[in-house]
C-alpha cells in the first residue's frame, strides 16, 4: 500500500519531448485511470512509474520514497501489459509464481500463494497449461494473477482489456473493480476507452499531447469538463460545439443564427466576449411548444434532423444546426423526429458549457461550480 506522487515529470526521446511536465498525486488505495487519445503519453507516464523508462526531469515518489534512480524490481509495482507478456515456455503456475521464485519464497509457500491467486481469478483448472493453450480472456486472467500474487504496493495496467471482445471486456472491467475493492491497492489504469475509465476509476486523469488536461472524479469530468478538449473527449457522441458571443441579459448569440439562455453568474465572462459554446447531445431539449413560434424571441436553436440511430434505450439523431453538425440523444420512447423538418432546440442554462476560444479552457466559475 502506498501513495504515488508525480511531480512535474518530463520525458524526452532524444530531442523530442513527449511528456511536458505532468504532476499528479494519487492517494493510497485510489484507483486512477489515465485517459487520452493514442500517442498522448499515457503509457510513457505509466512506464516511468514502473521504472521501465528513465525520467528525464521531475520526480516520482512511491510511498514517500523518490524512486527515480531505483530499478523496476525495487519499486514494488506490478504491471499488467496490453499483450499480457506471459512467459510462453512456462506453465500458468510458473508464470504466476515466477516473481515469488525470484524472491526466494519457499516452494510450499509459493504453491499456496499461486493457488490462492489462481482461485481469485478462477484459473485453478488451468495451472498446468502453457499460455499458448489458453483463450484471450484466460491469458488476461493469468496476467492479473501474476500481478496479484506479489501483493504489490501499486498495480499498473496498460490497456489490459483492449484485446478482448466487448462482452468479455465489460465482464473483466467489473472484476478488476471488484478485485480493487477487495485488495485496496493503489492502481493506475491506462486506457483510451472512456467507458472503461469512467466506470472503473475513483479519479480520472485526462491527458492530451503530453500534458494533463483535467484530474477529476468521473462525475465531475462529465459535468464540468475543464477544457474544450475534455468536453469533446468525454461523452459519446461528443459535445456539440459552436462559436458564439455573450449578449446582455443572460444570453449567448450563436454564430450563424440562434440564441441560448445562460446564467451569467455561472461564468467568469463579460458581455461581448467571443466564446465556444458546448451542449451535450443528451442535454438537448426539443422545444415542441415553440415550433411555430420562431418570432416569440424565446432563446433556441434551429435543428434539422437528417439521420436516426436506434441504440436500444437511447436514440441518436444527427443533423444540422445552421451549417454545423449537431447531435441529439433522447430516450427511445420519445416521439420520432421526422427527417428534414426544422425543430427548435435548447438546453437548461446550467447544462451549457462555455470555453475560451484561444486557450480552450472552461469559463465556468470554479468556486460556484464546486459549491453546487
Amino acid at each position: 500500500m502506498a501513495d504515488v506522487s508525480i511531480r512535474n515529470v518530463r520525458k524526452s526521446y532524444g530531442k523530442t519531448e513527449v511528456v511536458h511536465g505532468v504532476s499528479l498525486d494519487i492517494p493510497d488505495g485510489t484507483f486512477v485511470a489515465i485517459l487520452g487519445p493514442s500517442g498522448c503519453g499515457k503509457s510513457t507516464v505509466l512506464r516511468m512509474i514502473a521504472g521501465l523508462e528513465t525520467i528525464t526531469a521531475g520526480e516520482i515518489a512511491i510511498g514517500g520514497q523518490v524512486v527515480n534512480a531505483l530499478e523496476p524490481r525495487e519499486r514494488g509495482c506490478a504491471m499488467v501489459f496490453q499483450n499480457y507478456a506471459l512467459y510462453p515456455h512456462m506453465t500458468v503456475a510458473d508464470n504466476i509464481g515466477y516473481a515469488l521464485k525470484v524472491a526466494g519464497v519457499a516452494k510450499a509457500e509459493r504453491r499456496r500463494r499461486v493457488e490462492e491467486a489462481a482461485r481469485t481469478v478462477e484459473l485453478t483448472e488451468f495451472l498446468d497449461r502453457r499460455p499458448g493453450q489458453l483463450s484471450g480472456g484466460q491469458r488476461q486472467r493469468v496476467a492479473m494473477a501474476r500481478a496479484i500474487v506479489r501483493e504489490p504496493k501499486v498495480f499498473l495496467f496498460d490497456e489490459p482489456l483492449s484485446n478482448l471482445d466487448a462482452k468479455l471486456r465489460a465482464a473483466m472491467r467489473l472484476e478488476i473493480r471488484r478485485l480493487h475493492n477487495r485488495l485496496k491497492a493503489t492502481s493506475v489504469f491506462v486506457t483510451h476507452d472512456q467507458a472503461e475509465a469512467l466506470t472503473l476509476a475513483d479519479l480520472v486523469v485526462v491527458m492530451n499531447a503530453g500534458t494533463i488536461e483535467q484530474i477529476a472524479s468521473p462525475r465531475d469530468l462529465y459535468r464540468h469538463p475543464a477544457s474544450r478538449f475534455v468536453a469533446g473527449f468525454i461523452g459519446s457522441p461528443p459535445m456539440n460545439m459552436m462559436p458564439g458571443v455573450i449578449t446582455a441579459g443572460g444570453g449567448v448569440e450563436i454564430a450563424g443564427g440562434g440564441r441560448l439562455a445562460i446564467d451569467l453568474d455561472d461564468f467568469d465572462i463579460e458581455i461581448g466576449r467571443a466564446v465556444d459554446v458546448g451542449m451535450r447531445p443528451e442535454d438537448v431539449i426539443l422545444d415542441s411548444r415553440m415550433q411555430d413560434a420562431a418570432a416569440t424571441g424565446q432563446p433556441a436553436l434551429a435543428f434539422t434532423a437528417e439521420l436516426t440511430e436506434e441504440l436500444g434505450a437511447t436514440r441518436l439523431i444527427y443533423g444540422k444546426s445552421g451549417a454545423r453538425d449537431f447531435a441529439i440523444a433522447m430516450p427511445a420512447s420519445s416521439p420520432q423526429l421526422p427527417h428534414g423538418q426544422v425543430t427548435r432546440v435548447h438546453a437548461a442554462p446550467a447544462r451549457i458549457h462555455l470555453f475560451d476560444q484561444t486557450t480552450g479552457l472552461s469559463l465556468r466559475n470554479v468556486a460556484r461550480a464546486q459549491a453546487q
Partner: protein
Amino acid sequence: MGKRVTFGNTFIGIALIVPQLLLVFTFFYWPTGEALYWAFTLEPPFGGGNQWVGWQNFETVFSDPKYYNSVKVSLIFAVGTTTMSISFALLLALFVDRQLPGYRVYRFAYFWPYALAAPAVGLAFRFIFAPQAGFVSAINTYFPGAWNPATNGNDAMLLIMLANAWKMVGYNFIFLLAGLQSMPRALLEAAALDGAGALRRIRDFQLPLLAPTLFFVLVINLTESFVDSFGIVEIVTNGGPANATDLMVFKIYTDGFVGKDYSLAAAQSIILMLLVVALTVVQFRFIERRVQYT
C-alpha cells in the same frame, strides 16, 4: 495459411522452376552421381575403363587407422569450433540486443568475416598466430615453447578451431541477434518487474526462447565445420602436424588430388555426406522437438 498464388498457366510454373532445378542438378545431383560411380569402381593402373569393385573401396577406407584418426579429429574440431563460435556470437548478440552505444555500427562489422573466403581467413590467422613473429608470439617470450602450432598438434587444432569460429561468428551473430530482437520487449519488462536481474533474464527467458535459433545455428555450424573447413586447414596447418588436423574433408582432398586415388576419395565423400545427412536428421528429429513452445 493464407491463399496460395496459383498459376493458371502450367507453362509459366514449369518455366519458373526449371532454372532452379538445373542449378541443383548441375551442382548437386550430377557430382553426387559421379562420386557414387567413382566410389564403387576402380581405375585399372594401366588404363582402360573403370571396373566395378563393389564395396572394396569402402573396405579399404574402413581398414585404415588414419581414417579413424581423421573422423576423430573432425568430431573434435566440429564440437570445439561450433562451441566457440556460437558462445561468442551469443555473447555479442546479447550485448548488441541491450543496445550498448554504437550497436548499429558493430552490428554490421561483425558480419563481415563471413564474407571472407576461407583461405583468406586462414592466411590471416597463420600470420597473427605465427609462433615467431605473430601477435601471439609474445607468449613464447615469457613461456618459451608454449605456443607452436607447427609442432604441437593441440595448438594446431586450437588454431584452426579459432580461425573457423572467427569466420562463423558473424553469421551466428546475425541469426542470434534476430532471434533476440524478435522476442517481445514486454516479456523481458514483465520479468524485470517480477524481480529478475539482467543475468537471470538471460538464463530464464532469453536463452530458453532462443533455443530454436540456437538449434538452427548449431546444425548449420556443425555441417559447415565438416564440409567447409578445407580452405582453413589447407592454408593454416596443411593437415599437420602428424595428422593432428587431418579433417575428413581435407583427407578426401589429399587422397584424391595429391594421392590421385579418386575412388578412395569418392568413397570417403560418400561417407562424409551420409554422416552429415544422418547428423542433420538426428538433430531435427530429436532436438528440434524439444525446443518448440507454442
